């Protein structure tokens, strides 16, 4: 009889590894397309169904049913289960959608117009990677990332602090504080191959922030 193999790792480690592999795999799988998902208690716009009217229709819908059905089940029974707490609280959360499902096709940057108490205005250029030197853009890239999110309407809760920060950066003269900050976003959409490329950037003022002067003076004093 062969001698029993020496245990290479405790059983609890093995259970943890199996659980962890399952958890990160389920969490990183793509979401089913929006129209098939039920969100906020609302039923999905499109119901998954199998088309039995024709053979090609059947094959196509069956593949879709299998793929999206699997992802919807993963969403409902795994991602929304208490498993989420393990990943979200420990930092093991991860989702790998860089340049996907499609890469971004809009080049964007931000700037602002700062209004001062004496009625004057000043243009504030939020760091724009395109205009920075090679070394600077490597270190300042977070500004691009911040604006990528903070420049969207979904993140409107970030706008007042965005404006207030710009006011603080522009607050040089205690007798003439900034009173209002107009946030601007600029877009240039990349046209598909074979079409004429845009060169010009649009200019949209998307938020006017009234500066909280008391907070501004307190922040300035704190610095």
């Amino acid at each position, binding site marked *: 009889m062969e001698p029993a193999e020496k245990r290479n790792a405790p059983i609890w480690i093995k259970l943890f590894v199996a659980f962890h592999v399952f958890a990160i795999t389920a969490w990183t799988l793509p979401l089913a397309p929006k129209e098939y998902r039920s969100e906020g208690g609302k039923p999905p716009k499109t119901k998954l169904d199998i088309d039995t009217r024709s053979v090609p229709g059947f094959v196509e819908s069956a593949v879709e049913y299998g793929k999206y059905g699997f992802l919807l089940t993963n969403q409902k029974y795994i991602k929304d289960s208490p498993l989420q707490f393990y990943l979200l609280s420990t930092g093991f959360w991860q989702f790998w959608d860089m340049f996907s499902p499609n890469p971004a096709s809009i080049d964007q940057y931000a700037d602002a117009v700062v209004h001062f108490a004496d009625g004057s205005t000043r243009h504030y250029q939020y760091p724009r990677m395109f205009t920075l030197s090679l070394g600077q853009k490597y*270190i300042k890239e977070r500004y691009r990332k911040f604006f990528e999110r903070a420049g969207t309407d979904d993140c409107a809760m970030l706008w007042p602090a965005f404006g207030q920060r710009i006011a603080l950066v522009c607050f040089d003269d205690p007798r003439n504080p900034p009173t209002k900050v107009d946030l601007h976003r600029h877009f240039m959409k990349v046209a598909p191959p074979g079409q004429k490329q845009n060169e010009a950037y649009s200019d949209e003022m998307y938020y006017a922030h009234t500066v909280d002067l008391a907070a501004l003076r307190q922040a300035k004093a704190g610095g």
Partner: protein
Amino acid sequence: MRAWLRRVDRYWFGHGSATSLGIFRILIASLCFINLCMLLVDWEAWFGERGFLPQSVLRKYQGTLDANFNFFGAAVRLPFAVPRVALLNGVMDDRLALAFYFLVMLAALLSALGLWTRVSTIAMAVGIVSIHHRNPVVLHGGDSVLRQGVLYLALAPCGKACSFDRIIGLWKGKIAPGPALVSLWSQRLIQYNLALIYFTTFWHKFGFGGLWQNLTATWYPARLHEFDRFPVPQFVNELPMVYVTTFVTLAVEFSMATLVFYRPLRKWVLVAGLLLHGMIEYQMNIPLFSFLICSFYIAFYGGEEVEGWARRLGERLGRWKAFVRLPFGMTFRTGPGLAVVAMDPLGLVSYSPGDAPGLAAEARDKPVNPYRASLSRSLGAWPLGGLPYLWRRLLNKSLQAVPGPAAVEQTDAGISVQ
């Protein structure tokens, strides 16, 4: 079935050299330190109360962990919020937050050196997760890779090799010479997580991305000027090259998720991955992302393989070898001798008994400074090079008087002190 299960068990949990984990630790912790230094430049903007994301705004943006969950179809609500590892959340005093940040930097530095590795890697992981939870708005893909990397380091016995902990242990005689063997589950998790990154990003693209499916995806990022870095020839970003680069990107990502586990193809798949990320690093301004993700590649090689490379590289560099003669009548003390030799993974320094009153050395048939020659060739001693005379003191302290000749030899069987 049982045999298959045993093979799987041996693959995931079997023992092997910790050298790959040690190198992974050096790479990830060093990049973590560099990343923290880069963020430090705009620390107040990102983490301060006067910055873009004060605590009150963070709470609105991040919310609490949803207490509602689904348990096999049934909606359940917890009576409490689930906590996060977020030691900076709620800290309103910038001085405290900055002190915490510096402690995380220190932990990263110690982790890179492999000093108090168990504690320092855990501190680094808790610190990085807390920093990421303090400002999730500025995180990019590289940060997610870094976060996974430091968490795996906190779980792994990564201080068992390529670390000052090991050197100190050898010096004190508390560690046996030869490669440290560990259960490889943490290295397998690193491999698996990397493959998962590529697999899911491939699925996102190929399964749902129309531009990837029609092979024009790389047309777009090349024209986003906010990502511009070094210039590339015009034709690379024009049709038909765009078809080629899009296809190659998908093929490499798919291979990195699958074929990389097939040993005969492993090297070529990893080289393709390195080229892909080299191109991204050259062309696009995504700080440290390529370096971080390529650091994971080392996990696909066993520690024994890495040690073999080091040996073979040392042999190739044989013409640079230095021959250090110990002072007459002196030999290495056992532990310190092993520690000194362990700091020379390429085997570029040969220590042997000498007949001069002090240390002497030769390299390429010319006399050289023995301290400088041994320090410059001992990769593990490089961090000590910044402190003047430390290496000299260590070498001198490692010696003792003996009646007979002495030598330390590094052979395939291990290290022997005679």
